[in-house]
């Protein structure tokens, strides 16, 4: 059941087309993230879905009814703002009750529902506090409760974890996940952090410059990015341009790489730094073996990062586990052999 449909939506500000032509459909109960760098149009898309912006072209449907021109206060969406936007002059309870008051729900019902909502976010003791007295994490939970209590068809979150420190981030992530599963909420959130997207989403929508680059599950996006942009964005640090020749992918500067299926249309190949092995004992396992010179050795705790250069001048970043290699034996200027398997080479068609 498609809860939310965007059909060829375009939005421009003056001459600047911010959202070019996006079509998207989201099922009930899905947790979808819009992932991309600043300026890619993800926040604009969120505002289009919530109703604060109207598209110049295209159509939006929620639960099969067209909402393209419905104002935000009549749309069945609820937005959790990046800076929470809690009403400072109202108590936590009043904040959470606001949406219900606007829907003219009976006072007695409001009271019970507010208590329930606050209990769900573990803030039942804070009913009479004011937002100014709460920590960031607590404020966000109030914002969540305030949005969830109105039973929106689509819950929207704007960069929910960006403002939090690492520990809070984990807590909130779990909180959002459990709430979403429990209430079977259809959720869309916007983030520029790929890790956030990977952990939270059922589906990721990668966006760039107003276009959707790729839609897929976290593993699809992470393991099989389809374009240069997506690969680069999800951390494939070694990307080489070139073309397929005689069953190999030959890079622009002449490296012949073994790939698992040498199709004609491959424009780039990508290799993750942690997929590369250093001086292995069983070299024959790897169909790609190259001699490189180490430029820099960077110790990063659990991994060692090597910045290397091939004979033809191209470079590669390698991440090797530090318990398998002695850092004292690795020096800049050393010549080593790098190996990787053909099936770990990611073909990129754009």
């Amino acid at each position: 059941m498609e809860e939310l449909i965007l059909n060829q939506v375009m939005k421009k500000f003056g001459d600047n087309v911010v959202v070019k032509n996006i079509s998207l459909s989201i099922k009930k109960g899905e947790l979808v993230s819009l992932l991309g760098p600043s300026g890619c149009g993800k926040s604009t898309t969120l505002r289009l879905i919530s109703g604060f912006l109207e598209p110049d072209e295209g159509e939006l449907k929620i639960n099969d009814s067209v909402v393209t021109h419905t104002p935000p206060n009549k749309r069945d969406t609820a937005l959790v703002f990046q800076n929470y936007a809690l009403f400072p002059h109202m108590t936590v309870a009043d904040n959470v009750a606001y949406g219900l008051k606007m829907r003219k729900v009976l006072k007695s019902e409001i009271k019970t529902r507010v208590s329930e909502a606050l209990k769900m976010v573990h803030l039942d003791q804070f009913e009479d506090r004011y937002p100014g007295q709460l920590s960031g994490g607590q404020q966000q939970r109030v914002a969540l409760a305030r949005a969830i209590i109105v039973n929106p068809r689509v819950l929207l979150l704007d960069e929910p974890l960006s403002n939090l420190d690492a520990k809070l981030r984990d807590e909130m992530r779990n909180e959002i996940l459990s709430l979403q599963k429990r209430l079977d909420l259809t959720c869309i959130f916007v983030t520029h952090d790929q890790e956030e997207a990977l952990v939270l989403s059922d589906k990721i929508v990668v966006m760039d410059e107003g276009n959707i680059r790729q839609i897929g599950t976290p593993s699809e996006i992470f393991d099989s990015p389809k374009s240069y942009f997506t690969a680069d964005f999800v951390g494939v640090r070694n990307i080489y341009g070139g073309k397929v020749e005689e069953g190999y992918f030959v890079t622009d500067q002449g490296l012949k790489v073994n790939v698992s299926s040498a199709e004609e249309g491959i424009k780039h190949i990508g290799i993750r730094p942690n997929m590369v092995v250093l001086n292995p004992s069983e070299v024959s396992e790897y169909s790609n073996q190259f001699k490189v010179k180490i430029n820099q050795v960077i110790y990063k705790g659990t991994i060692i990062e090597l910045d290397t250069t091939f004979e033809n001048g191209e470079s590669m970043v390698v991440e090797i586990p530090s318990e398998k290699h002695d850092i004292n034996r690795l020096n800049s200027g050393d010549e080593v052999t790098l190996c990787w398997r053909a099936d770990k080479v990611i073909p990129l068609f754009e």
Partner: protein
Amino acid sequence: MSWNRKRSRFEIGMLIAPTTILITIMFLLPLIYFLRVSFNQNILGGFMESAWTIENYIGFFRDPYFLKILWNTIYISITATTLTFVMAFPIAYILARMTSRWKGVLIALVVFPLLVGNIVRDIGWIAFFSQNGLVNRILTQIGLTDSPVQFLETPPAVIIAIANVVLPYMILSIQAVIERINPALEEAAIDLGASRWQVIRTVVMPIAMPGILAGTLFVFILSMNAYTTPLVIGGTKVQMMAPALYAQITEVSNWPMGSAMAIILIIITLLSSILYLRVIERTTSSNKNTTTTEVKG
């Protein structure tokens, strides 16, 4: 800055001395003189006799003539302030939330009449409201009345003219507070189902209240103290405190009464200020952070 303390005190003294001396001698002292004179005995036809009598104050509050003036002043001030608020709030809200390049132009348009001077504007009102003025001409033209209606020298005319003078002050002070309110708060309210009017009533106004109150207080004081406008527009039929007390001093030569009126006026405005400031304090409780433009944590 951490400096030698003695040196600092000397420096501070030098910086504030001229202004402090000036204001104390030529402003505060005269006010005390007024206070003293208000207890003097007036001599008909003469200057006054040094005394300690409260007959001026009693005379003021016993005389229906003076009470009417005081009542006029308060009633006109309250009405003008209320009228001004009703007009100012929508403009202030729109200006505050405006982002186009016309914003500066509109603000200038609001401020400009203020800087033009009261007497100049009163000329405009006379031409507008007089028996041969624009309003009467239009009214007779469209047949609403046969003979010219008397607008000048009526309370409504004075109220309108005063409201016109103070309107820019109110608009700008309300605009300033609304601008400090994070627009995301209004969006959050709309997202939760509020209409624009509900947003203003439940979110914007409560948060802007201290600024609104400060603005209305300032406007009320300006109105209470008005001289030129009530003089020119109100004439002899609608009298307010400031012109009346001036007349007591310069025309009737009753310095004690004029001084008593001055003191009464000052006390009323002082009391209103204190009352207002208390109310403002109460609407800004310490546990509410009302300028949520920052994120905590």
